[in-house]
């Protein structure tokens, strides 16, 4: 790499207008003029958009014409464009690390009012960067190899899509799913909006493709328990929970289920949202993938007490049942990880005024999905508890969404799935259907049209947040009905609408263990518990941890098209790393100056990555820069100032402190 850093600092300074984003608040001309007088600055300019091609060329030309050996750009956050400008410097023949960026947009113009204080702040930050950059040394970028295998966590539609995309691109994928089968929430749906195509028809082929794909290792009923390493080189431990069945042998014939000593189905069927029962040994649903039964250790007599006739064993002609199966931990190495851990639905019981769990015939939307599904617990019939068809159904939107007392966010899918259910209910029962909504949100392709179609079908839309689902009639007609009390905000009065069935459109929430999961993978969460993307627009599936990507509803509520698109994007990001074969790492690692080190060992236990060891012969500390991730904790602790962190040397930081203050 050609580097021009010899001799005195010759600094080029550039301040960006960012249209009016910066120039509307900070007096950029004054900043440029001020910077021009700072020691070492030989060129000082302001320009409309520094990140544009002409902006970058400006830097490159100046480097050559003015023989610059340092560059400072005052514009937006370095987290956004540091790379852009470093590359520009490099193209101009300068070592990319002889560059410093000043954040005068996110940290200045966007948070302060126009005027002198904002401009003074910009000058102070510029002063610090100019002083600091003179101390910068040319650095080499480190490269690390990317292990080509990928781990996908979560086997819902997001995980399935990501795994297939990668596997079809010839990568080895481990797909880990906590439940006994993949499919996630989508497997429970009947139809999908707005096209009304059958969820199973589009999902089942993908599930089979996962199971059959030679490049995919599918581990269901399994959980990631430990993650070590860093981008390109993750070491992951996966615990395979015992399902008491040999997966290789079982073909899902379900003879064991028939033979079980429990003749009745007695235990709550998770897949059918409590609307049906199952036995201690069961196949989650007919298309479960892998098609392997699972024993519920809390229900199976043999597993609970060891005293069962074990009629299932006899029934299995493949000897697939293993009652003493133990959890098994697999250790794998992967280069990248995609998290697609999904969501949970809001617990409607938290809002007692809507009667879920206390009033019969109040259902959640997911229960209706199961009911309307031909292979569901009612064989596709929408019925009341007494088996009759409802004549009037109320669908209440925003249960656990857009509500300060529960969740403030919009769950994005409820309006659309409520309309889909309204359509299906009307189609199946001919009932009058009322939608109670705050706002209808239908901002997708074909969504608004679907809303119009529903209105044409005669589905009622009443705007108002429902106060209560009441069972206290005031008139004869209300007797035996569920009465929806709501202020109709368009009509301007309070209404009582008697219906036979209430559907609660429950919102989406982060998984209850989202915090543990993100700690495991060392990524960030929003306060609500959604996984945080690196940038909402420019890096929507990346996280702050290199090599870990997110897809689907673990990042926030979204519908199937968006989820699938995101899963594809995450797979694409992983593929791009894999194809490159290596990743360039920020050279902000630390090293020990051996002559200075007294061998006191203070630093050794502080390193979270065990990158520091002691050279027993020389009695000095040594940092393995391949392992060092550049936090600098050892530098701060080193009692004799013998450790240096590249890009964050003591001298650089002291000079920043000094200059920022005046």
């Amino acid at each position, binding site marked *: 790499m050609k580097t021009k850093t010899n001799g005195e600092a010759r600094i080029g300074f550039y301040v960006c207008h960012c249209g009016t984003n910066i120039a509307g608040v900070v007096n950029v001309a004054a900043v440029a003029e001020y910077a021009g007088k700072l020691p070492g600055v030989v060129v000082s300019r302001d320009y409309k958009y520094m990140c544009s091609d002409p902006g970058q060329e400006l830097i490159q030309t100046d480097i050559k014409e003015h023989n610059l050996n340092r560059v400072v750009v005052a514009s937006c956050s370095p987290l956004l464009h540091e790379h852009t400008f470093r590359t520009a410097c490099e193209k101009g023949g300068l070592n990319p690390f002889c560059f410093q960026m000043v954040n005068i947009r996110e940290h*200045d113009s966007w948070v302060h009012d126009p005027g002198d204080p904002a401009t003074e702040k910009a000058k102070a930050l510029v002063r610090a960067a100019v002083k600091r950059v003179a101390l910068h040394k040319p650095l080499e970028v480190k490269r690390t190899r990317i292990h080509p295998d990928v781990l996908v966590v979560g086997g819902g539609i997001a995980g399935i899509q990501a795994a297939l995309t990668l596997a079809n691109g010839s990568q080895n994928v481990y797909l880990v799913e906590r439940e006994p089968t993949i499919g996630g929430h989508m497997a429970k749906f009947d139809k999908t909006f707005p096209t009304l195509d059958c969820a199973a028809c589009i999902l089942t082929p993908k599930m089979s493709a996962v199971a059959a794909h030679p490049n995919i290792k599918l581990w269901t009923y399994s959980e990631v328990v430990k993650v070590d390493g860093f981008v390109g080189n993750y070491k992951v431990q996966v615990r395979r929970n015992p399902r008491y069945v040999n997966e290789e042998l079982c073909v899902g014939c379900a003879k064991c289920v028939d033979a079980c000593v429990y003749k009745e189905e007695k235990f709550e069927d998770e897949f059918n949202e409590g609307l049906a029962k199952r036995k201690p040994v069961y196949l989650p649903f007919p298309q479960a993938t892998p098609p392997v039964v699972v024993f519920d250790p809390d229900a199976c007599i043999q597993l609970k007490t060891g005293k069962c006739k074990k009629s299932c064993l006899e029934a299995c002609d493949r000897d697939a049942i293993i009652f003493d199966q133990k959890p098994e931990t697999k250790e794998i190495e992967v280069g990248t990880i995609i998290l697609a851990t999904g969501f949970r639905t809001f617990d409607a019981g938290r809002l007692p005024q809507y009667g879920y769990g206390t009033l019969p015939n109040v259902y959640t939307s997911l229960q209706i999905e199961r009911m309307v599904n031909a292979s569901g617990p009612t064989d596709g019939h929408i019925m009341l508890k007494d088996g009759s068809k409802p004549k009037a159904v109320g669908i209440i939107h925003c249960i656990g969404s857009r509500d300060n007392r529960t969740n403030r966010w919009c769950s994005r899918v409820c309006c659309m799935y409520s309309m889909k259910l309204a359509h299906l209910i009307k189609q199946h029962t001919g009932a009058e259907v009322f939608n109670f909504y705050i706002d209808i949100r239908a901002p997708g392709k074909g969504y608004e049209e679907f809303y119009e179609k529903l209105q044409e079908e005669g589905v009622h839309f009443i705007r108002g947040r429902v106060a209560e689902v009441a069972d206290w009639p005031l008139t004869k007609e209300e007797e035996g009905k569920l009465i929806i009390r709501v202020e109709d905000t368009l009509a301007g009065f309070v209404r009582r609408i008697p219906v036979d069935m209430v559907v609660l459109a429950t919102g989406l929430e982060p998984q209850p263990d989202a915090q543990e999961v993100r700690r495991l993978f060392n990524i960030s969460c929003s306060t609500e518990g959604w996984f945080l993307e690196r940038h909402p627009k420019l890096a929507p599936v990346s996280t702050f941890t290199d090599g870990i990507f997110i897809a689907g509803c673990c990042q926030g509520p979204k519908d199937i098209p968006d989820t699938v698109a995101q899963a594809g994007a995450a797979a694409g990001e992983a593929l791009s790393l894999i194809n490159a074969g290596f990743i360039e790492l920020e050279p902000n690692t630390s090293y020990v100056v051996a002559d200075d080190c007294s061998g006191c060992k203070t630093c050794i236990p502080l390193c979270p990555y065990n990158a520091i060891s002691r050279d027993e012969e020389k009695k000095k500390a040594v940092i393995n820069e391949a392992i060092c991730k550049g936090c600098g904790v050892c530098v701060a602790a080193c009692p004799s100032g013998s450790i240096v962190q590249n890009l964050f040397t003591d001298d650089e930081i*002291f000079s920043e402190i000094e200059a920022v203050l005046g």
Partner: protein
Amino acid sequence: MEMKTNGWQPKIVAFFCNWCTYTAADLAGVSRMKYAPNIRIIRLMCSGRLDPQFVMAAFARGADGVLIGGCHPGDCHYVEGNYKTLRRMTLLKRMLADLGIEEDRCRLEWISASEGDKVKWVVNDMTEKLRALGPLDLPGKHKEWDAEMEALEKEVQTQQEGEPSHVH
């Protein structure tokens, strides 16, 4: 004191970790939250990089307050860097108190990447508290301390130019 506070604005030097608090400050910007322009942010990769010397240097160079922002306990991008910060800050706060630096002048806050509003709140709150405390102005104070030597130094200088003479 009255004279000094005239038009005086508190100066806060902040050390923010790259992954949580610096990003939160970026988020505050993206969300166009308005807060006091008294803060100057210096980026570190981890709050664990914070050498207490930096805090001392900031005060000595004229900061009225020093703010340190890191990831919440358990959330450190580097596993445990923030606990190391907490240990240093616990002792540093005690020492600063003994050196006559008011508690509100040195502050450690855990601010996650999603807490842009907390950046706003903390900066505003700290600015207000520093306003109430008034300037620290150590460079001025040190100059004032050294003023007592000036008379002698001047005398020594004139002496060097002219005849040696007794000072007392």
